[in-house]
C-alpha cells in the first residue's frame, strides 16, 4: 500500500489531481457547517448580481439565489450521485462479469449477449430512454447512469475472470473442498479488485459528466434543488447577458472531472502490473556499457574470446551481479557447453556478447568479448546490428515465442536474410527452402507457407535453427534450445545441430542444465554458479572426474536412466541471490568441504592442463574412484 502511494505521488499530474480533488471533496463535506446563505431562497429584486458583489461572492442567479451556496450544495450533490453511480455500476457490472467468466459456457453466453445488446444502444439514448420510462428525478438519473455503465465493467471483469478461473490455484481450492460461491469470493474476487479499482478510477469522472448532462436536460435534479448540471441548464438562457451564472458551475465541473481523470490515470499506472514491471518502457537497442577499467587485451584464443565479462542489473538502489567476471572462448567447429542452474548467469553471459541484455536495467560494467580480435562490448550499434545474425546468431528456448505468429515461416526466413543483404523474391524463396532442407524439415516446399501454430514444437525449433543459419554465421548461441521439447524430438534436434557444426565448421555455445545433453554434444564445458565459472575443461574430463564440489554434487543429484529406484544425493539450501553475494566462494554455505578460508577473499580459477577449477579444496581423483 505504501509503495502504491509513493508510486502514485511520483506522478506529478496525478498528485496535483489528487490534491485538488481532496480539496473539492473536503469542501463538499463541510458545506452544511459553513456559514452559507440558504441555496434555495429566492430574491428576485437581487437577481443577476455580478461576481464579488456585496453579500454574494460569486453573484446571484436569475432568481437572486446565492451562487456560491448553490455551487457548494450542487457540487456536493453531483459528487455524491457520481460516486454512487460508479459504485453501483462497478458492483453490478463486476458481479455479472465474474459470474459469466467463472461459470463460462452457456451462462457466459446468455449473460454476455444481454450485455452486448445494452452496448448496442448509444449510451445517452439509453439513459434518456431509462429516465423517460422511470420519470425525471435525481435518483432515476442515477439508475440510468449506472445501467449505462454496467456493460463496460461486465466486459472488462469477465475477461480478467476467465484468465483467473483457469489458474491452478482455483483447481486447488476446488480440491480443498471450497464451493463455487466461496471460490468466487475468496479466490477470484481478491484478484480482480485491482482491476475494478482501475476501471472505476478512469470512469468516475465520465459518470459525473453524464449525470450533469441528464440534469442539464432537466431529467436529473428537480428545481429548486441545485446540482451542477441543473445550474448550467438554468443559466443557459442568460448565457450572453450574464455569463458568470454559467461559468461558475462550468468551471467546477471542469475542475472535478480533470482532477478525477488525472488521479485515475495515476492510479491505473501505479496499479497495473504490466506498467509497473516496466515492460512498456522500451529497452535500448544495445545494452548500456559502462566500464570503469580498460578491458584486458585479447590473447588470440579462438573465434570468440570473452574476457572478465561483468554484467549487472541496476534495479532501484540494488545491484544484481548477474555475471561477475566470466572468461570463455570458443573455436571454429567447436561446441562449448555452459551448464548451470537458473540464476547462474549463463543466459545473461550469452546475451551480453551481442549487447542483447535489456537496458535498462542491464549494464555491462567490465570485460570484453573479442570476435576475431574485435571487441564487441561497446561497439557502435550500427556495427552490432550488422553482426547480429550474420556473424553470431541465437537460438532460444521457446520457438513459439521467437517466431511471429502472424507471418508464414518462409516470409520470416526471407526477412532474416534481407536484413543483411538485398535478395529477390525468387532467390529468397529458394534460399528459404534450402534452409528448411538443411534442418531436415520434410516437404520443405510446402511447409514454407505454414504459420508457426501449424507446426509441432520440434518443427518450430527446426525453423528457429534455420533462421539462425540464414546468414551463414560463424557462431550459434543456443540457449536451452531443447528444454521445451519431448525427448524423442530433442534427440532429433541435437543431431541436426551436431551435423551442422561438423559440416559447416560452426562454433556452438550451448547453454543447458542437462549433463546428458552436454555429454553428447559438447567438446568443452564451463560450469557456472552465481555468475562465475567455477569449473571448465574438456567434457570427458569434467564428467569423469569433476573437481569442483558443486559440479560433483550437481551431477550426483540428477538421476540417470538405468539406475533403478534410489535415493538422490540432494544439495541442501538454495543458490545465493546475486544482489548479496557472500565473500569468498558463493557455494561455501552449501558445501560440506568448506573451511574458513573459503569464506574470505577472491578465489581464483586454478588451471591444471586444460582443466580449471575455482576451489581451494577441490575433489581429488581418488575420492571419486
Amino acid at each position: 500500500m505504501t509503495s502504491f502511494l509513493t508510486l502514485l505521488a511520483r506522478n506529478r499530474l496525478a498528485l496535483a489531481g489528487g490534491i485538488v480533488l481532496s480539496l473539492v471533496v473536503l469542501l463538499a463535506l463541510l458545506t452544511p457547517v459553513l456559514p452559507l446563505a440558504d441555496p434555495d431562497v429566492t430574491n428576485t429584486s437581487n437577481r443577476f448580481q455580478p461576481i464579488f458583489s456585496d453579500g454574494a461572492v460569486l453573484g446571484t442567479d436569475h432568481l437572486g439565489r446565492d451562487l456560491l451556496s448553490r455551487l457548494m450544495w450542487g457540487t456536493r450533490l453531483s459528487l455524491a450521485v457520481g460516486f454512487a453511480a460508479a459504485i453501483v455500476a462497478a458492483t453490478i457490472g463486476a458481479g455479472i462479469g465474474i459470474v459469466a467468466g467463472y461459470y463460462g459456457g452457456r451462462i457466459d453466453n446468455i449473460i454476455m449477449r444481454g450485455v452486448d445488446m445494452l452496448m448496442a444502444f448509444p449510451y445517452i439514448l439509453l439513459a434518456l430512454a431509462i429516465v423517460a420510462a422511470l420519470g425525471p428525478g435525481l435518483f432515476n438519473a442515477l439508475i440510468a447512469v449506472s445501467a449505462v455503465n454496467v456493460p463496460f465493467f461486465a466486459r472488462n471483469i469477465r475477461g480478467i475472470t476467465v484468465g483467473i478461473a483457469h489458474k491452478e490455484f482455483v483447481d486447488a481450492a476446488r480440491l480443498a473442498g471450497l464451493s463455487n460461491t466461496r471460490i468466487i469470493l475468496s479466490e477470484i474476487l481478491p484478484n480482480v479488485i485491482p482491476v475494478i479499482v482501475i476501471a472505476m478510477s478512469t470512469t468516475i469522472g465520465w459518470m459525473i459528466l453524464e449525470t450533469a448532462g441528464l440534469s442539464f436536460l432537466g431529467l436529473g435534479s428537480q428545481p429548486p434543488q441545485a446540482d451542477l448540471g441543473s445550474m448550467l441548464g438554468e443559466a443557459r438562457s442568460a448565457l450572453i447577458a450574464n455569463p458568470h451564472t454559467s461559468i461558475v458551475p462550468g468551471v467546477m465541473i471542469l475542475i472535478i472531472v480533470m482532477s478525477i481523470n488525472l488521479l485515475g490515470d495515476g492510479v491505473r499506472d501505479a496499479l497495473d502490473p504490466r506498467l509497473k514491471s516496466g515492460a512498456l518502457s522500451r529497452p535500448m537497442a544495445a545494452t548500456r556499457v559502462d566500464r570503469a577499467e580498460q578491458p584486458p587485451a585479447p590473447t588470440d584464443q579462438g573465434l570468440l574470446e570473452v574476457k572478465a565479462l561483468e554484467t549487472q542489473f541496476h534495479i532501484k538502489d540494488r545491484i544484481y551481479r548477474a555475471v561477475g567476471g566470466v572468461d570463455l572462448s570458443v573455436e571454429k567447429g567447436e561446441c562449448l557447453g555452459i551448464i548451470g542452474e537458473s540464476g547462474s548467469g549463463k543466459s545473461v553471459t550469452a546475451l551480453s556478447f551481442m549487447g542483447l541484455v535489456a537496458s535498462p536495467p542491464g549494464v555491462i560494467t567490465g570485460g570484453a568479448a573479442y570476435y576475431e580480435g574485435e571487441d564487441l562490448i561497446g561497439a557502435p550499434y550500427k556495427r552490432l546490428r550488422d553482426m547480429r545474425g550474420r556473424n553470431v546468431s541465437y537460438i532460444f528456448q521457446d520457438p513459439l515465442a521467437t517466431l511471429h505468429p502472424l507471418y508464414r515461416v518462409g516470409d520470416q526466413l526471407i526477412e532474416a536474410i534481407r536484413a543483411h543483404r538485398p535478395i529477390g523474391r525468387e532467390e529468397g524463396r529458394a534460399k528459404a527452402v534450402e534452409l528448411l532442407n538443411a534442418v531436415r524439415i520434410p516437404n520443405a516446399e510446402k511447409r514454407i507457407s505454414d504459420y508457426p501454430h501449424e507446426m509441432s514444437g520440434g518443427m518450430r525449433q527446426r525453423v528457429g535453427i534455420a533462421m539462425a543459419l540464414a546468414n551463414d554465421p560463424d557462431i550459434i548461441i543456443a540457449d536451452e534450445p531443447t528444454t521445451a521439447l519431448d525427448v524423442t524430438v530433442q534427440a532429433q534436434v541435437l543431431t541436426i545441430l551436431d551435423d551442422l557444426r561438423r559440416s559447416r565448421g560452426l562454433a556452438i555455445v550451448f547453454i543447458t542444465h542437462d549433463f546428458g545433453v552436454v555429454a553428447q554434444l559438447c567438446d568443452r564445458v564451463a560450469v557456472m554458479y552465481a555468475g562465475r565459472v567455477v569449473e571448465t575443461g574438456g567434457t570427458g574430463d569434467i564428467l569423469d572426474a569433476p573437481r569442483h564440489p558443486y559440479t560433483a554434487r550437481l551431477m550426483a543429484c540428477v538421476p540417470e536412466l538405468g539406475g533403478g529406484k534410489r535415493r538422490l544425493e540432494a544439495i541442501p539450501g538454495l543458490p545465493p541471490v546475486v544482489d548479496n553475494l557472500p565473500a569468498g566462494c558463493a557455494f561455501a554455505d552449501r558445501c560440506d568441504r568448506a573451511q574458513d578460508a573459503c569464506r574470505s577473499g577472491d578465489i581464483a580459477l586454478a588451471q591444471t592442463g586444460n582443466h580449471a577449477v575455482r576451489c581451494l579444496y577441490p575433489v581429488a581423483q581418488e575420492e571419486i574412484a
Partner: protein
Amino acid sequence: MTKALKLTDLSKTFPVGRSLFGKSTGSVKAVHPLSLSVEQGETLGIVGESGCGKSTLARMLVGLLPPTTGQIEIEGAALDTADPAAFGKRIQYVFQDPISSLNPRKTIRQIMEAPLKRLHQMPAEARRKRISEIFESVNLREEFLDRYPHEFSGGQAQRIGIARALAANARILILDEPVSALDVSVQAQVLNLLADLRKTFDLTYLFISHDLAVVEAVSDRIAVLYFGSVVEIGPAEEVFAAPKHPYTKLLADSAPVVGRALTPPEAEGTELPDPLNPPPGCAFSARCPRASETCRAKAPRLTPVGASSEVACFHPLSE
C-alpha cells in the same frame, strides 16, 4: 489386499470445433479406455510425451474433469460424482507449477487452512496444531505461514503445495510433474522429501512426468502412455532397461545419457498421429520399425508378458 486405486475403462473425449449453434463438429479422444490399478503404498510412474493424455488422466482422477466412460474406485469404494470435494478427502493433487497453484492474495496460513476447514470441519485450535505438524514433516518453518506466495522460491513453494495436499489427509497423491519446474539441485530435495513422506504416512503415489530418469528413480512400477493409451506397464527396473514395446525403446534410446554417443534414434521427420483423424490400427505403427499389416489394421490390446509386465504390441521386443 484392496487396491488403493482402481480404474476401469476410464476414457475422456473432448468435443472440438463449434458450429454456429454450439454443436461440436468433431471429437478428440484424449484418453482411450484405460484400466489400471495401484496397490496401497505403491508408486506408479506414468511417462509419456506432450499430448499423450497424462494430464487429462490426472485431472479425471481428482474429479476436476468428468470422465466420458469408466469408473474410478478409491480404496474399494467407487467414486463417480464429479465433485472435487468428495474426491478431495481421499485423493489429492500436487500441481506442476508451484507458484501459480498458490493464490497470490492469500497468506500461506489461509491456503493451508482451506482443506482443514472445508473438508474436515476442524475447529481453529486443532487446525493450528495440524498445520504445524504438517509443516514440520515437509521441513518448512512455521514463520512462513504469515507470508505470501511470491516471497518463496520454486522449491519452497512446491513444499507448500505438498503440505496442502497432505492437509486434506488423503492417502493417495497425484503428482503431476511435481519437479519439472524446479532446478536440478532443488529437484532432488523435493524427490527425497516425497520418498520420506510416503514412508511416514503410508501414501500411494501416482507420479506423472516426462522425465524418464526421474520416474525410474521414484517408481515401483511404470506405465508408458502413448496417444492416450498405455502401451507398456511393468516394474520400474525393467521398463527402460529391457523395453518390450518399440515406443518404450525409442524413449529410452532418445534420453541423453552420459557416455552414450549421439545417434538419431529414428528416421527424420516423423510426426505424431493426428488426434482428429487417428489411424485405425496401432497409433505408433507409422513410426515403428517393426510394424506389419496387422499393426496398421488392428489396435493391439494390453497383454501380459513375462512375470509382471504387460505390453500392447503385436510384435513385442524380447531380450
